[in-house]
């Protein structure tokens, strides 16, 4: 009786699932496909395999400047978000203070806040502070907006940590400061790497917040977006394909590290 139910469900679930995945991934497949098409984005099906667009891409200095800018912003954002996120996670995990529930919600708010709100408010802040818009404001914007991601990931790591280890360290004569560096931080290695990869990927892809804070130097997504206004070229397909591959690799590493943290805890 029970054995037939899942089979019957699967009969209509399967095409449905295929349709959903096709809707999500077919555009990506098309994008990747046309990056190798000699005749550009026009014409179906794509014919004449070529690496011409990739060659063009590698010779395009403006794109590589944008890539470098994005890497700088992403690396800075990782450092900023991890540092502040770790402090927030430690406060949430260990300290008891008035307004803790409010603090938790405020820290996590940027996760659900639309990027346009975050970007606009940061822009207003930068204007009030008299700070010229540049990669620095973009980095500050990404870093602060992504603190919530770091906090969530690191708080989960702290919750799973065996507190007796820290007690053992204190018991053996290590000061709280020594204990933090020699026991707490090494225990958080996996969550730190995982959160760092996730923040790096999110920063590399970010447009909404960046749009408000960007100065003269473009990040990669902004550069791509700017070129699209002059028409679609397969060069864009080529760089998008590379971004897609790198993102998938980083997210897979992040996911595997996360699974390993969960396994270690149980």
């Amino acid at each position, binding site marked *: 009786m029970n054995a037939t139910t899942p089979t019957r469900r699967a009969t209509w679930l399967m095409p449905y699932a295929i349709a959903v995945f096709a809707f999500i991934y077919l555009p990506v497949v098309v994008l990747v496909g046309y990056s190798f098409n000699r005749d550009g984005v026009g014409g179906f099906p794509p014919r004449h395999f070529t690496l011409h667009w990739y060659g063009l891409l590698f010779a395009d200095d403006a794109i590589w400047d944008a890539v470098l800018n994005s890497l700088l912003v992403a690396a800075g954002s990782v450092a900023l978000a991890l540092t502040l996120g770790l402090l927030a996670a430690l406060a949430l995990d260990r300290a008891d203070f008035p307004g803790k529930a409010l603090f938790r919600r405020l820290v996590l708010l940027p996760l659900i806040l639309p990027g346009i709100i975050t970007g606009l408010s940061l822009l207003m802040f930068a204007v009030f502070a008299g700070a010229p818009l540049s990669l620095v404001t973009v980095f500050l914007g990404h870093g602060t907006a992504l603190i919530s991601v770091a906090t969530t990931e690191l708080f989960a790591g702290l919750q799973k940590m065996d507190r007796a*280890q820290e*007690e053992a360290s204190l*018991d*053996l004569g*290590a000061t709280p400061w020594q204990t933090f560096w*020699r026991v707490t931080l*090494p225990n958080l290695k996996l969550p730190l790497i995982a959160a760092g990869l996730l923040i790096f990927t999110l920063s590399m892809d970010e447009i909404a917040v960046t749009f408000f804070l960007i100065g003269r130097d473009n990040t990669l997504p902004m550069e791509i977006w700017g070129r699209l206004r002059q028409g679609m070229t397969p060069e864009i397909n080529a760089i998008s394909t590379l971004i897609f591959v790198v993102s998938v690799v980083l997210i897979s590493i992040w996911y595997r590290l996360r699974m390993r943290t969960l396994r270690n805890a149980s």
Partner: protein
Amino acid sequence: MNPSSASSPSPGVASGGTLLEVRSVAKRFGTAKVLNDVSLNIAAGEFLTLLGESGSGKTTLLRLIAGFEAPASGEIWMSGQRLDLLPPYKRPVNTVFQHYALFPHLNVRDNVAYGLRARGTAASEVAGRVDDALRMVKMQEFAAARPGRLSGGQQQRVALARALVNRPQLLLLDEPLSALDANLRKQMQSELKALQRELGITFLFVTHDQEEAMALSDRIALLRGGTLEQIASPREIYKRPATAYAAQFIGQTNLLKAEVRAGVAVCGALRWHSREADGPALFSLRPEDITYVPGGSPPPSSAATFRGTIQQQLYGGASETLEIACGPTQALRVRIRAAEPLSGELQFVFSPEDAIRVKV
């Protein structure tokens, strides 16, 4: 290290002088009282066990001494120094944790060296002392291994070495053997005891296992619901339990609700001479202090005798437990050396001095 450690101190007397003093310490978690005005002294070189059920406050008391908790009131002193105001890393005590709490990211050698390095000991000295400590617990060959690859017993040894390498004046052990299987446990018990004798370090040992407490301790502090029930040597606490709880928790016993009148205590079918004052009194009579009289032979004149019917005979190898009924509502347990199957009504005998008056 303590020179006066070769012989264990006699019960209740601090042979090496008092090392640790717990003075009317109380602890609350929220509104729950976990420890209630507990006072006790630990002598230098002593093996003292905190024994009690879960919730008795034994682990809390240990954590107060280690410095992981602060007392609500009371003081803890160690060799003339107030301990309870110091942070854990400034206290001259070390702890062996229940689940060892080894550092998973460090190998065995670095785990053991951790305390010495944290205190800034010279590298040349660290190497030698770590080697000695690993040799002491027979773990030299595992020096390069990560704790995750070791068995429970091996982790236990590393935890012990990690604490002892710092040469603490007092070693705190929080149910260190509870995670081991029965055979390993017995073996580790005897190794622990030998180690303590050899090093002369004072051990404060927490356990809920009364047999373990009896086998290892110079003295046992029995805790119940956050108060100290009795503190005495294992023999003393077994032979002369202060309370009904102590009598029942440590070994088995028969509790007799008796009425004393003119030097004779009466409890159902049992009558015996007692020096207690007139009035109601509670007595503990150990099952092995009662024996049956083989048919025909007369009982010793000073002994108390009564008749009982065998209800059950439980064979236990070296000894057997008899459950007997003497009267419509009275049941007793008797432990005798293994004998042939018994049945029917028999005469039983015990010495009046084995019936120990206990507090409720």
